[in-house]
């Protein structure tokens, strides 16, 4: 008995070591399963505020580029708006149609602006933290877009902060399609460069060429149809040879992402409920 006690005392650091490593690995492998809790993440109150202060200090450095992008985007949008308006006026001389259509488009979605306060691009599982949370109406599974294209999907929310799974995460899977036709696939990331994503399951008979634009499909409840994601960079065969593997150059530059918008669709509960029913069967 005494020998055993001596043994335990002599090698007590082994027990502490195993205990501490045990806690670490529990954290490592259970990050997915505690989606409700944001304690050990950058969305908790303390870390969120440290990043918020940093963001307020460094936010000014990006103003010039942000401004330039906004102006470019604004010009493009007003041009587009003008062309659509003209087209619509040509098609429907009846002006009440235009009013009704405007209302229809805006009725389905809420848009919440937010700032990126923490971001990474070098890990295999990158996350983005933004400075808006439940208090601002953000819930998990909402879509997030930047100035130039799709960014990702909201993952964990706390009261004033949220964590987003960007395209640059092994867990990310965004339903997308070719802009010109309806062939669809799933946008994933396989590590490496932060500028490229992949679509592994594009059917072989799909008509496509390098340079085609990839947009969201609108099949999931997260994103509306037609938000730009990227352009086809090259086309290869997938590993099983049954479909094309597309390398997609992403529109969003994750390395200098600063302003994002969270899109919340107002009435998704019915669609989600229906889809869950199928999964349960």
């Amino acid at each position, binding site marked *: 008995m005494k020998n055993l006690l001596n043994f335990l005392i002599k090698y007590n650091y082994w027990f502490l070591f195993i205990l501490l490593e045990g806690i670490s690995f529990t954290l490592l492998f259970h990050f997915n399963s505690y989606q409700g809790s944001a304690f*050990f993440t950058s969305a908790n109150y303390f870390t969120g505020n440290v990043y918020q202060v940093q963001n307020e200090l460094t936010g000014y450095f990006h103003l010039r580029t942000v401004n330039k992008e906004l102006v470019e985007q604004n010009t493009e949008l007003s041009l587009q708006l003008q062309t659509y308006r003209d087209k619509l006026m040509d098609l429907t001389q009846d002006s009440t149609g235009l009013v009704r259509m405007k209302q229809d488009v805006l009725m389905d979605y809420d848009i919440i602006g937010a700032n990126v306060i923490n971001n990474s*691009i070098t890990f295999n599982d990158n996350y983005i933290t933004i400075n808006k949370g439940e208090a601002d109406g953000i819930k998990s599974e909402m879509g997030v877009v930047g100035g130039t294209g799709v960014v990702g999907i909201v993952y964990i929310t706390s009261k004033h902060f949220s964590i987003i799974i960007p395209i640059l995460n092994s867990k990310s899977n965004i339903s997308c399609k070719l802009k010109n036709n309806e062939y669809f696939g799933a946008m994933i990331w396989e590590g490496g460069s932060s500028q490229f994503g992949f679509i592994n399951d594009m059917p072989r008979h799909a008509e496509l060429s390098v340079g085609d634009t990839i947009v969201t499909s609108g099949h999931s409840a997260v994103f509306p149809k037609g938000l730009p994601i990227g352009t086809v960079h090259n086309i290869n065969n997938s590993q099983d040879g049954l479909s094309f593997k597309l390398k997609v150059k992403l529109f969003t530059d994750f390395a200098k992402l600063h302003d994002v918008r969270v899109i919340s669709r107002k009435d998704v509960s019915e669609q989600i409920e229906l889809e869950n029913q199928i999964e349960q069967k």
Partner: protein
Amino acid sequence: MIVYLRRVGLFVGLILLQVLILNNIHIYGYGTPFLYIFFLLIYSSNASKNTLMLWAFFIGLIIDTFTNTPGINTASATFLAFIRNPILNSFTLHDNNEIFEPGISSMGLNSFIKYIVALTLIFCICLQLLNSFSFFDPIQLLIKILTDTLSTAICILCVDAVWRR
């Protein structure tokens, strides 16, 4: 008392430096300096394994909380603390009873560099292996380990030269 204040100051300072500045450094997309392990490497030589592991656990946990990499830094730093003393002893000619803080002045440049590179390499191997659970790319893994080790070791040597003054 002053020793403790200095230690806590270094603890907080290194965490802030790591999460606010160094984590944003990626030389060609690789090579992030993990300077915060400096805290564990220069902890005085008479520290017990338990003390060192607890410090390592908490510094890793805080870094992980900031970077959304739960467990990765915690596990690597704890392991680093676990193997630090044997490796420190193998690189020094001091008597076991003598108390010193590892550094260029106390160990000499040559053996300090060996000590830093050995431990940094082990730390980066742990970190990147844990990080590569989601997808495994051996060449990229190797590049990441080597560039991270190099940038971390250089940073630690520079900081050590300044910190001693």
